[in-house]
């Protein structure tokens, strides 16, 4: 900028006064200067027609004097904003690091849980998957510690651990269901992860989405269990899933992701119903009577 600004007076001096103004500017506009360089020249050119060349050079200094206080003040104001945003960026990076560890733990947990489709003894599979829970508790404790630094900003960074947490809930609730046949409740999930609801709780929507993910796992489980010869499984899963679906219908949902997941749950229900139907119509289920009752309900 400075080189051009210094050069401009010399260029102007070499041009006859009458053609000095407009052609020069259009020349600059056509030349390869960037718009920023070009605009840097403007103040100088602006003064040129009415001032002597000497005062024009002064005029350039004047422009600086005139503009610097605003520019400097703005620079200071934005400096403050930048440092605040950078701090929050650093915090976010720390959160992301923990969230990624949570994610890889869930992968391990998921892969060990997938063994249930191999019809290996369920209790062994569950034990192996549960070994990861301790690690998860530690990681969530770390997250809670980071959030403790900025109280009330849980939801500012919520997006950074959201999906991971939903997966965690789906895995925990699946394990819980395999063990007990019941639904892992929100408070139970919090307790399992060692969360303190007043400080760093489990968001209810995340919990519900996680439960929907768990429901997605059930049809495949039922199919493989039946193949492995467990003909009671469909009835049990169907009952559970119907109850769960009925419970979800109590909620007034918005048009959001949870709604979408809930809408998908009916397809899980349908697939389990189909398997149940196939097993029942062939009389494979031993407990014929109760299965028949369930079946009637299923058709209604």
């Amino acid at each position, binding site marked *: 900028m400075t080189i051009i600004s210094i050069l401009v007076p010399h260029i102007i001096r070499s041009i006859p006064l009458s053609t000095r103004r407009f052609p020069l500017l259009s020349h600059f506009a056509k030349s390869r200067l960037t718009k920023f360089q070009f605009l840097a020249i403007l103040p100088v050119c602006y003064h040129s027609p009415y001032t002597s060349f000497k005062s024009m050079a002064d005029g350039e200094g004047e422009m600086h004097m005139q503009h610097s206080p605003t520019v400097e003040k703005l620079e200071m104001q*934005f400096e403050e904003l930048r440092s605040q945003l950078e701090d929050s960026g650093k915090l*976010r990076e720390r959160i992301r690091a923990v969230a990624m560890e949570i994610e890889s733990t869930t992968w391990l947990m998921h892969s060990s849980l997938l063994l249930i489709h191999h019809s290996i003894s369920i209790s062994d599979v569950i034990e192996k998957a549960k070994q990861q829970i301790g690690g998860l508790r530690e990681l969530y404790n770390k997250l809670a510690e980071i959030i403790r630094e900025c109280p009330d900003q849980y939801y500012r960074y919520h997006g950074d651990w959201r999906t991971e947490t939903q997966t965690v809930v789906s895995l925990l609730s699946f394990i819980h269901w395999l063990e*007990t046949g019941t639904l892992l409740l929100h408070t139970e999930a919090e307790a399992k992860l060692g969360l303190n609801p007043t400080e760093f709780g489990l968001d209810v929507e995340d*919990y519900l989405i996680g439960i929907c993910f768990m429901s997605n796992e059930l049809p495949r489980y039922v199919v493989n269990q*039946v193949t492995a010869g467990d003909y009671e499984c469909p009835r049990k899963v169907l009952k559970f899933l119907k109850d769960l679906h009925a419970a979800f219908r109590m909620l007034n949902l918005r048009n959001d992701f949870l709604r979408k997941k809930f809408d998908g749950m009916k397809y899980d229900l349908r697939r389990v119903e189909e398997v149940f139907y196939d097993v029942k119509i062939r009389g494979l289920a031993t407990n014929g009577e109760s299965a028949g009752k369930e079946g009637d309900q299923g058709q209604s």
Partner: protein
Amino acid sequence: MKLFNSSSFVKLSIMASKPQQLRPLAGTSRAKRERTITSNSSVSESAESNPMKDAFAKYANYLNDLNDKRERVVKASRDVTMNSKKVIFQVHRIGKQNKDEVLEKAEKDLAVVRDQYVSRLAKELQGTDFWRLRQAYSPGVQEYIEAVTLFNFCKAGTLLDLDGVNAALRPLSNPSMEPLQINIIDYVLGLADLTGELMRLAIGRISDGEVDFAKKICTFVREIYRELTLLAPVMYDSSDMKTKMDTMLQSLMKIEKACFSVHVRGSEYIPPLGSADARFPLLGEDDIER
């Protein structure tokens, strides 16, 4: 449900022959499973449905409350937007003669927006809700930022910083509540929108002959744009910052182009007609003085 079953029956009946073959093989593991799982479910079957229903009743209440609150915040935010827009239009009515008068009215309008509409947000956004419902109130708050900073620029010629905005909000909430403090993200996004309004203001001022004012706006916007190029990469919370930067550059270039043509035309045009030229009276005087 009958529909589903009949349509898929053909497909599934082919698969269904397999379990029959497997049945004798899997007999032992089935017996074992029956003991472990069905015994559990038979215990829980009677007691199970109630805790689940109870828990879901709680979740339903929670979601209802949250959605109601979100809805209230969205409504309040819309009111803030609407009334902030009115303030912005009022500021645009500024002219050479009526500056004080226009700004005085704008200040009054701004106070109304603050006391009547922004204050409604303060009540709803206590604790963690402040960040949770950000999406719901963000548009209104950004518009409010736009209005206050535009007003402040016209009055004082400076940028009103976040502390300044928040200081004005502090008296709104009663002592028992946390005061509503605008967050940095919405402030910066509001500044990005401000440049669009300043562009309109600059063009208006140029056609009214207030070239110096327009040039001041130009420098100001140029500097905001420059500073925001540094801030945009560290704004992780907002994806729309990038598009705002593009729009901002468009606005800035419009101001610069307008300033440019007034320079060029002004310098060529005025001397032959003299300072009596009616179209750019200020420009003429100004240039001759210098």
